[in-house]
C-alpha cells in the first residue's frame, strides 16, 4: 500500500510516478555515471526522486522484492519519483551502466 502526504491512491506495488504529481521526500542525482550517494535510508511510503544530471541517458531500476521498479530510459535533465513501500533493503542500479549502483534502506 502506498501512502502520500497529501494524496490517497489505490494500492500499487513499487510503481514509479512521474514529475510533480508526488512531493519527493528525497532526491538522488545521477552524474558521471554515478549516483550522488551510495546509500539512502528512508521510511516506508517515502518518495525518492531520481534526477538525471548526466550527459548520458540512464535506466534506474531495482529487482529487490517488495520494491521492484524500472524507470525505463531516462534522458538527461529529467527526474522521476519512486515510492518505496516495503521495509527492507533495495538494491538500485542503472540497467545500462551497472557499476552505477546504490542501496536504499527502507525502515518500517
Amino acid at each position, binding site marked *: 500500500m502506498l501512502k502520500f502526504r497529501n494524496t490517497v491512491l489505490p494500492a500499487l506495488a513499487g510503481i514509479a510516478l512521474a514529475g510533480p504529481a508526488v512531493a519527493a521526500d528525497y532526491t538522488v542525482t545521477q552524474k558521471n555515471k554515478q549516483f550522488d550517494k551510495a546509500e539512502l535510508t528512508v521510511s516506508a511510503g517515502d518518495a525518492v526522486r531520481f534526477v538525471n544530471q548526466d550527459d548520458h*541517458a540512464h*535506466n534506474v*531500476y531495482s529487482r529487490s522484492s517488495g520494491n521492484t521498479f*524500472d524507470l525505463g530510459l531516462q534522458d538527461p535533465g529529467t527526474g522521476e519519483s519512486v515510492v518505496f513501500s516495503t521495509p527492507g533493503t533495495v538494491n538500485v542500479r542503472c*540497467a*545500462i*551502466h*551497472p*557499476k552505477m549502483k546504490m542501496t536504499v534502506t527502507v525502515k518500517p
Partner: protein
Amino acid sequence: MTRGRLKTIADIRFALGAAAFLLSAASVGPVPAKAYDTAAERPKSRAEWKAEYVRPATIPFPADNPYTTEKAQLGQFLFFDPRLSGSNHISCATCHNPSMSWGDGLPTGFGHNMGRLGRRTPTILNAAWLELLMWDGRFESLEEQALGPMGAQAEMNQDLSLIESEIASIPGYRTMFNVVFPKEGVSLKTIAKAIATYERTVVSGLAPFDRWIAGDENAIPVAAKRGFDLFSGKAKCAECHSGWNMTDHSFHDIGLPDGDIGRGNAFPANPKLQHAFKTPTLRNVARRAPYMHNGSLPDLMAVIEHYDKGGVSRPSLSDEMQPLHLSEREKQDLVAFLETLDGEDEPTVMPRLPVGPGIAQLRTAD
C-alpha cells in the same frame, strides 16, 4: 598472480593515484596546440590515457565469500568435474577451457547432447572485477552465475535437486566441504561459493602492453603505440573498452546484424537496450577468436572493419558507433595494439578429482 593479501579499495586507489602521478611526469605522445575552455574538453595526452590502464594490486573477494586456499582448491576441483552435469560428461572447463584462454574457440558453444547454444562462450578471465555476468547481464554475482549453466537443460543439464547428494556421496568431496564450509557441508550455495572463489583467481597475466604502461618503451612496437593512440582517440574503442580490463561493464548495441536483442529481453521498454550486450574484456583478445556475442566475426581485422563501417543503423545503436574512416595502416596499427594484450597467464595445474563410490552406477540423463 596475486592472491590472499586483501588490501582495501583505498589502498588500490592510492596505488593508482601514485602511478598516475608518476606516469603524468613522463612526456610522451601528441599534445594539441589548440586552447580549450576547460580541462575536461582538452583531448587527453598519451600519458594521461596510459594512466587509466594500471593493473590492480589485488583481486577483490566479497565479504560474504572471502578467499582461502582450500576454498579455491575445492572450487577448482568442482570447476573441472564433469560429474556436475546431467550427462557426467560436461564440466565448467569443457566450455571455459584454460587451454583456450578460458573460452572454447567456437562461434557459439555446445551443450547437452551436442545441442548448439545461442551465444559465444565468454572467457572467465578477470571475472572477479565484473559487475554483472553473461552477455545480457542477468546474473549479479559469480555465485549466482555458477549454478545457471549447471542447471540449464541446454547446457550442463544437471538436476540441481540431485547434485548435493551426488557430490556428498564422494568421500573426498565430503571431507573438503566439511573443512571449507564446516557448518554447511555440501549445498548448492557452498558449491557455488567454492566455484566462484576459484574463478576469481583466474586473472590474465602480465602482457607487453602492461610493461609499456609501467614505463618500458621497448615493450611494444611503434605500430602498437600508434594503435593505442587510435584506440584512445579516432577509433573510439576506449569509449567502452576502458580501463585495465578494457571494459566499462556497460551494455551497448554495436550494430551487429542478427536478431538477438540481448539485454533488451529483460528491459523491453528501453529502446537503447535492444540488441545491447555487455562490453567484454580485451585481455588475451588475439587468442580468443571468433568475436562478438554470436562469434560472427572471425578475426581482429574483421572486428575493426565492422567498427569502421559503423554498424546497422537502428534506434538502439550506441551513440559512440559511427563510421570511422580508418586508413589501412590505421587498421593494422589497431591490430598491432590489440596483439600486445596477450598476457603470460599462469599455467593451470590439472586437478586429480576425488573418486566416487560405484562409478559404474553414475546416473546419466537422456
